[in-house]
Structures are given as structure tokens and as C-alpha cells.
């Protein structure tokens, strides 16, 4: 079970794990308060510490959740970037669904 066989449903398999390793490692580090301070103080320098590629840096710094996931960012790790902002998880869901936040809440979660 490695390639995604279910429509619109990427599984975090070896490809994601390999591609996203640096993004995920950087995000994991945000579980430490000192690293959160460093990230807030100079985000780009923090990303450089973890040797993110220019494309990965751009996705993180522009908070392009969709691209982060496409590049192997696993949601459970990148949620720690969201925690610093803070960005609600439903906004990350909406970005991936390609819906604006209000439409996402209504159409997917049945909220008015």
C-alpha cells in the first residue's frame, strides 16, 4: 500500500517521507519554545538551518499549505507552523480543498 489509490487522498508514504523530510524536521522542531522564538524572530534563517530548498522555503513563508503537503509536508508536523501563526486547521483544510474558508465550513463540515 504505497501509491494513492483513493481519489483526492494522498497517503504519507515513502515518497512523501523522503521528499518532505526537511520541511517536517523543521516543523517538528517548533515543538520546542526556543525554536518557536527563533522562527518568529527570523523565519528565513530558521528555515536555512534545516536546509530547505528555495521552493520549500517559499511554500512555508507564503503559508501555501497545499504546496507544503504536495512537497511531502505531513499535516501533523506542519500544524506546528500553524500553531505559531496561529492558523486554524479548517483554513488549512479549505486551502487543500480549493475552497474559501466559509464555503469549506459549510460544504464539507455542514456548518453555517
Amino acid at each position, binding site marked *: *500500500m*504505497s501509491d494513492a*489509490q*483513493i*481519489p*483526492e*487522498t*494522498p*497517503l*504519507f*508514504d*515513502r515518497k512523501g*517521507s523522503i521528499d518532505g*523530510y526537511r520541511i*517536517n*524536521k523543521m*516543523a*517538528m522542531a*517548533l*515543538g*520546542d*519554545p526556543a525554536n*518557536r522564538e527563533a522562527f518568529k524572530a527570523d523565519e528565513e534563517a530558521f528555515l536555512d538551518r534545516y536546509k530547505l530548498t528555495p521552493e520549500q522555503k517559499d511554500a512555508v513563508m507564503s503559508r501555501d499549505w497545499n504546496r507544503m*503537503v504536495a512537497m511531502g509536508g*505531513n*499535516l*501533523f*508536523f506542519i*500544524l*506546528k507552523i*500553524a*500553531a*505559531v501563526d496561529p492558523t486554524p*486547521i*479548517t483554513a*488549512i*483544510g*479549505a486551502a*487543500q*480543498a*480549493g475552497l474559501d474558508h466559509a464555503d*469549506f465550513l459549510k*460544504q*464539507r*463540515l*455542514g*456548518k453555517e
Partner: protein
Amino acid sequence: MAKIIGGVGTSHVPSIGAALDKGISDNPDWKPFFDGYIPGKEWMAEKKPDIAVVIFNDHGNTFFLDRVPTFAVGVADHYDPVDEGYGRRSIPSFEGATDLSWHFVDKLVENHFDPLVCREIEVDHGLQVPMELFFGRPENWPVKVLPIWVNTIQYPIPTPQRCWEMGKVLREAIESFPGDERVVIMGTGGLSHQLQGSRAGFINREADEDWLNNIANNYEKFRNMSREDYVEQFGSEGAELIMWLVMRAAMDDKVDLKMKHYHAPASMTGAGMVVLENL
């Protein structure tokens, strides 16, 4: 020998803990969810277990991708809550049921399981939230815990059938443990949700209701489903439900479904619980 006093299946959504921290569990969004757990809490208070076995997955908080155990068992004397990015939550540390943990590890290996054995480790919302839902916010937890981690993050995740087999070993371990401890088994995770991909926000209320109605006494179909079936029906993260099978397999073939509760959505997740007792 120790005694299994019941099995619980429950969601462990992190926003449940956040709602408790913010004191918003009584607002209209959350009240119906928390109200449904009141009978569960009363049941637990009446049953007075000494040990809670909690089967859950870490969510990129304790284990990183540098080492991913398919199954891990805690043998620590205590487990602190881990900082998930918002600061460490102010809930008490969990005391470990060390002797039963080691005994379980022995039984696992005798039965050809190869767990990672963890002597010093923190726990995330996967364990914290079920404890809060069933024991409230005491100054100290009234039970010791035996944590079992299942990898549901990086593929390959274990098969539902393997989770079932682990539940059988868990039962053997509890029933052969020299002591008179009362043990509750908590299988956690789910229900349907998907956080990644363009199907994000997927919730399958029908499948969730079916699960809650049938996990007690009509579980064969869930036991036979593939991992792909779980992902398709319950969403990529809803596949966490395989962890309830560890609990279910540790109970009798026929059980009494004491209570169930469902609420959707809790954050982005179908959420709920069942409480089972052996007849």
C-alpha cells in the same frame, strides 16, 4: 489475575483538549459533544479501574520520521504531556503501570510481536484527550496508564488484522498478570476525518454511525476490511479507527454495548464513543 472491567472506544481530537483549556466546553458548538460523555464519565467513576490501557497514535509530537515504530509500548514510571506547539498543557503527568507494561511486553514477544519498548517518553493528545473525556480534570489521575502507540502516520501502517491479533495478546497479558488490578482498555482515534488532500474535510456520518452500532456485536466486517477500505470509508486520518480493534479483540466475542455517543463535526472530525462490557 487482573480483570478487564470494560472496553472503551473514543475519539481523541486535539481540539477537545483545547476546548477544555479555553473553558468553552459549554458553548453551543461543543456542549452536545461533551454532554454525550457524561454517562461515560459516570460509568468510569462507578467501575473504579486501577489501570487504563490506552491504544493511540502519536501525531508527529513524540516520534519523528527518523524512527517510526509500527507498535510501541510504554514501560515508564510516568509520562508527561508533550508540547505540541502551543506550550505544555497544564494537566497532571500520567503514572505508568510499569509491572503490567513489562508483562505485556513479555507476552507480545512470546507471541511473535516485536514492539519498541519505551522507558522515557512523553504523550500527546492521543492519550491525554481520552483520559480527560472519561476521568475529567482531577488533580491526579485515578488510574495508572499503559500506553500502546500504533503508527498511523507513515505508510505502511499496520493492518487491521494485526491490530486485532495484538488485542488478543493484550487480553492474555491482563488475564495472566498476577494481581487483582481492575483494567479498562481504551481504543482511541477517529471517527471519520481527512486533513490532507483535496478531499480534506471529508466526514462520513453514515459510516461512523454504522461503526458505532456494530463494533460491539457485528464487528466481523470491520475486522476483515483492508487499510484501503478504512481510508476510503473513514478518510485518510479516520483510518485511526483500526486502533479500536485492539480494544475490541481484547473483549469477549459477545459484549454488552452499555452506551454510545456521536457528534459531528468536532473541529473537522466525526467524534464519539462506545462503552462495552463483557457479559
